[in-house]
């Protein structure tokens, strides 16, 4: 540690794997999806990429994607751990 003060450096997963916070996981129904992108737009944590793949390491399972999906193509399913 050479910094004279606490300087935090950017790091993916700075707060650990927040995917473990989930009770429900989003599951995308590719058939129903029309790739409008609203799920990615509204994801608070930016966990959904352009191909509408969800990064489950970090997805907290808030369910906004499912709620905002106009095609109801995302279902929140109970985590089985």
């Amino acid at each position, binding site marked *: 540690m050479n910094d*004279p*003060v606490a300087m935090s450096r950017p790091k993916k997963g700075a707060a650990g794997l927040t995917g473990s916070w989930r009770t429900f996981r989003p599951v995308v129904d590719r058939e129903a999806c029309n790739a409008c992108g609203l799920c990615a737009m509204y994801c608070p944590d930016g966990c959904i990429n352009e191909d509408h793949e969800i990064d489950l390491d970090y997805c907290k399972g808030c369910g906004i994607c499912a709620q905002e999906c106009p095609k109801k193509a995302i279902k929140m399913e109970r985590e089985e751990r």
Partner: protein
Amino acid sequence: MLTVATGNKAVAAAVKAAKPAVVAAYPITPQTEIVEQIAEYVTAGEMDARYIPVESEHSAMTACIGASITGVRSFTATSSHGLLYMHEMLHWAAGARLPIVMANVNRALGPGWNVWAEHTDAFSQRDTGWIQLFVSTVQEAYDTTLMAFRIAENTGILLPVMVNLDGFVLSHIMQSLETVEIGDYIPPMVLPHRIDTGNPAGYGTLTGPGDHFKFRWEIEKAMRNSPAVIADAEEEFAMRFGRKYGPVDEYLCDDADVLIVSMGTLGKEAEVAVDNLRKEGIKAGSLRIRWFRPFPELDISDRDLVVLDRGYSFGFGGVLTDSIKSRYRDSSLFSVVAGLGGQEVTYDDIAEFVRNRRMGEEYWFGVDA
């Protein structure tokens, strides 16, 4: 150049010479003349600084913090309630290791309203991590303000520095002043942890107990390095400009049986008392403390001490007395609380304290029988 100036104008002249990029300040008696003078320098184009006329002292210190973390030199001045209003940010500045320089014109605190000299304002900031220097003449105010930038910005220190001068007694007195061409006495400021959008970092993010502890220790390590750095700044100053300063200002101490220990302008008044006492055959000396934090090593063994305190810790004792007692437990000491709220303390009064000293006791001048 030799001229005459008030303590306030001397500080402003030194700040001008130090070329800060940002000055943020709020007026308060008896400091106001400093920031008015700086505003004039800036308006007249004699100083290439951004003057931020903030709406409070809390914001003055915060704006200096915001400026300093980008890596530029910053300055502010305040006094009394202004200093206490920024107290939170004083901790922040030191904790963030920002070499901000501040002049504090020592003044009492209300109630009742009192604009005159007292050291309680600075003493209340004792544990903030600021280096605190106390001066006694217009010349010393100028010289020490210049040194303050060099000390604060030393990469082994990176702590803010407060230059204290007594309200009115020194801030408004006119004395001769020799200004200097500072050349490279204050090297360009290099802040290793300055904000860099090319190499982003989170400053002051949540820091756990173990790490927080480490950074507090870093502050103390810097404080422990500071005596050598301050001494170096003083020696270099003496070499370049011919005026010598040290952690204490000693006057006829070597053969003294009794030392008057004081801070600020009382230290000069005490020298007159020493002269008069010596005429009576009392071997007195004056020891004026210039560095309050870091607190200096004192050569006081086997002498009676008469400590003049211009600030008090209620329920405990005089603040200077406290510092000396805790460092030198065996000291034989007469604690005089005097000069609060600008109470007049003359060289005759000081001589009387020495003549009538009661070792081990405390005496409130003008109140005690």
